Each structure stands twice: as C-alpha cells, then as structure tokens.
C-alpha cells in the first residue's frame, strides 16, 4: 500500500488521470487525506509497462 513515509521523501506528488476526471478528483482527495491524517493507506503503487513506457500506477 501507499506508504505514509513517502510524504517525507518527496516535496510533492503529481497525480495524473487524464482520461477520468472523477478518478483524478478521488485520487486527489485520497492523497490529501494521507497528507493530513496519516491514518489510512489508499493507493497501491504499481509499475506497469504501457507500450515502450513503464509508468507508475496507483489503484484506489
């Protein structure tokens, strides 16, 4: 699961969900909750090959 310690390793995260605006908003709220409450772990980070690219995905 998305470890809360990440927030100490980064200055910020960029949440991307170009084809699904509702998904983007949901993810932003989840990220904010991690930031504020440090209680729940919402996002599963995966590395997925998309064509020639590997991208990091988060599953809500």
């Amino acid at each position, binding site marked *: 699961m998305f470890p809360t310690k990440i927030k100490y390793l980064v200055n910020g*995260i960029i949440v*991307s969900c170009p084809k699904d605006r509702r998904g983007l908003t949901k993810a932003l709220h989840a*990220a904010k909750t991690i930031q504020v409450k440090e209680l729940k772990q919402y996002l599963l980070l995966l*590395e997925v090959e998309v064509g020639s690219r590997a*991208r*990091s995905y988060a599953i809500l």
Partner: protein
Amino acid sequence: MKVYAESVLGLGRDLKYIERFVKTIKSCANGVDIPESSLGYPSINSVVLASIIVNVFNVDTIAHVRLADVNHLGFLPLAYAAQSLSIGRLLVTVGDPPKVGKPVSYLASEDSLKLARVYGVRRLKIGAILSLRFPLEKIYERLRRDFNFYLVLRFSEKNLDKFAKVSEKATGLGKELYPYVIVATEKEY
C-alpha cells in the same frame, strides 16, 4: 507534501472549462502540473495556460516546455514569460516525437537550463525529468546538475528503497522531487 493535479487541455477547452477544473481541484490539490503536447499531440500551450491559472485563479503551477519543438529563440521567450508572469516552476524535457511535423531537437535539457541562466532567467525554478530506471550513479549525476527540481518517473512500490536513497541525495543537494503517480481507474488502466 504538495499535491499537484496533472492537466492536459486540448482544442475546445475555453476559460469557463479551465475555471471549472481549477474549482474542482482547488480544495484537494496545491497546484496544477501542465504537460505540453503530451505524446506529441498538440495541446494548449502550457506557459499560457499556467499564466492564466496562476494569475487569474491564484493556483500554483508547473509548466512544461518540449525541447523537441523549439530552437534557442523559441525557448527563451517561454522562459522569459514563465519568469515574468510568476509561474513557479518550468520543466524542460525533450518530449515524445511530434505527431505533427518534424522535431527541431537543437536543445537538450541541460542546454536549455544554461541558455536561460545566461540570458537572465535567474529567479525561475527550472527542472528536468528523472527516471528511476537508471542506476543510482547516473541518477546522482543528474541530481548534481543545476536544476532546481525533478519530476520523477517509474516511482513504484518496487523501487521505494532506491527512491529513498535518491531522496536523501536530493535533500543534501537542495533539490526538489515530485514523483508522478498515475491513477488507474476503469477508464484509464
């Protein structure tokens, strides 16, 4: 930790749409990351869009410039605009090959950074892409360049230990790190 929402706007998106988007994300994000012509398909110019979001809606932005599409004189006005119009951060990246026309590709990220500084762009934070697929030595070498921040690719649970080392190094060098997290939903994945 700041949270940025990525936004790519194509033709047909007007000021009202931008306003709706900013209102939607404003309560749950600190800013907007604006790629330029993702995957080589044309989009609204990121510096123009960032200027509106910063100056009209008072929301922080990261604007991207695709170096595949500009020469030296094409890049400098964008850097001047970004600094003059209070855009917080400008990311320089070669980008994917253009789907319209041919690439210019005179400038690498480091060249554009030097060019901007030589031509007086001193206040603007300029950043580059940092991929975790490279070995640590290569990543450290890139961190030692004069960029102010890095957008991090291939950030995942598998390489969190590696990322922790990169983060420690970046902190020591005073560099900012912003990993990409792409949300997988039914429409997206």
